[in-house]
């Protein structure tokens, strides 16, 4: 009988297992200087994850914390634009790649920073036929390199803004185990249903620790009469499988202008009711993470 793979000593010297272990070590070493890694996810698109991440980062920075943001949306990156660093370039440094910093000193890493211009699509070099065989690997490596090769330095919070769906969330949980995840939803039945499905995957399949839910666009804030109006028809009571709702953020059209201008809404409107809601959300997020970190209460 001919020899089998294990009968021939060595693997040509490649030590693929050792190389993968080195990549894992590089990632865990980098994240060791970050107190809390928080994923911002939703099963559904268009719920305002990136807007929320932008303003959470701003709110935490305004409270004096050191904050970084990783844009895990490989094909639709938006955080660099929303945080005002889209025209900047990361810089190679002695300890990884130095990310651009915003006016609030938030460190940002995004695929957008690796594109030639704002209109350039994300296209990996390689044969276009049967690209499904290798594209998924590159997406995973892009996220891994964002986390492992960015010189984040010492951070209190690293927020990871995930694309819609659960695929990248599952990849993230293969790579690292965030301190907890924040789930973004809208106060309507469709969103709650889709988000509920992603929660089942996150909690039951991946056993991912969840911090709570944020309901975005929970009403409309009128800057003229300073009142809060419902944005959607009255819906059934929210039920997110027992997860606490950490915040309900009303929509303010100035969110859109702020995003376009690359300036977090909170920088200019922290005193407006939606701004106060966002700052309150930051406090509750910090409290939840502190509770989880001190193991007084496990993540749900």
């Amino acid at each position, binding site marked *: 009988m*001919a*020899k089998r*793979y294990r009968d*021939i000593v060595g*693997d*040509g*010297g*490649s*030590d*693929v297992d050792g*190389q*993968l272990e080195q*990549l894992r070590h590089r990632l865990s070493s980098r994240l060791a200087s970050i107190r809390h890694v928080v994923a911002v996810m939703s099963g559904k698109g268009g719920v305002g994850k990136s807007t929320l991440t932008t303003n959470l980062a701003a709110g935490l920075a305004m409270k004096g914390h050191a904050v970084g943001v990783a844009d895990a949306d490989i094909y639709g990156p938006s955080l660099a634009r929303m945080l005002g660093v889209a025209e900047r*370039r*990361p*810089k*190679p*440094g*002695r*300890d*990884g*790649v*130095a990310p651009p910093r915003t006016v609030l000193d938030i460190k940002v890493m995004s695929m957008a*920073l*690796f*594109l*030639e211009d704002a209109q*350039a699509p994300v*296209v*990996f*070099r*390689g*044969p276009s*036929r*049967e690209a499904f*065989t*290798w*594209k998924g*690997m*590159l997406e995973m*490596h*892009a996220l*891994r*390199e964002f986390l492992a*090769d*960015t010189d984040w330095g010492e951070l209190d919070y690293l927020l990871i803004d995930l694309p819609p769906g659960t695929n990248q969330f599952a990849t993230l949980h293969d790579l690292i185990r965030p301190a907890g995840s924040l789930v973004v939803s809208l106060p309507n039945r469709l969103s709650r249903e889709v988000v509920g499905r992603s929660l089942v995957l996150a909690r039951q399949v991946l056993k991912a620790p969840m911090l709570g839910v944020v309901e975005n666009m929970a009403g409309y804030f009128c800057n003229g009469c300073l009142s809060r109006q419902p944005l959607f028809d009255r819906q059934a009571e929210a039920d997110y499988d027992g997860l606490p709702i950490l915040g309900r953020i009303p929509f303010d059209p100035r969110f859109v202008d702020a995003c376009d201008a690359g300036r977090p809404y909170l920088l200019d409107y922290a005193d407006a009711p939606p701004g106060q809601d966002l700052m309150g959300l930051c406090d509750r997020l910090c409290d939840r993470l502190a509770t989880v970190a001190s193991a007084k209460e496990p993540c749900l």
Partner: protein
Amino acid sequence: MKFLCVECDEPMKFDQFGGMDDDGSLAVTFRCPSCEWGVTMLTNPQETQMVRSLGVQIGSERTAPAPMAMLRQFMPFDALDGVDGEASPVEASASGASKCPFAKMIKDMDT
């Protein structure tokens, strides 16, 4: 991946690199050290790309991968190229990296 000469029950050794075509297809010839029977491994562009996308180096001579090496290798535009910065000791290996995933193996076997 190893190649075995069934007749001799001997692992084959690298013999010749047939080059990588523009589309990414690759040819590497291995030969049995006992009977000199040869076999050429031909990969199509997808197979070559699949190995490249694993993010590991094939062969015994390795350099620590430069930061963002995969991104820089696979993005059509190198955002870090020409940017002033404090270059890391392994920085040079990113831009100078061979596109052939088996380059290290071939170099090993060549010497």
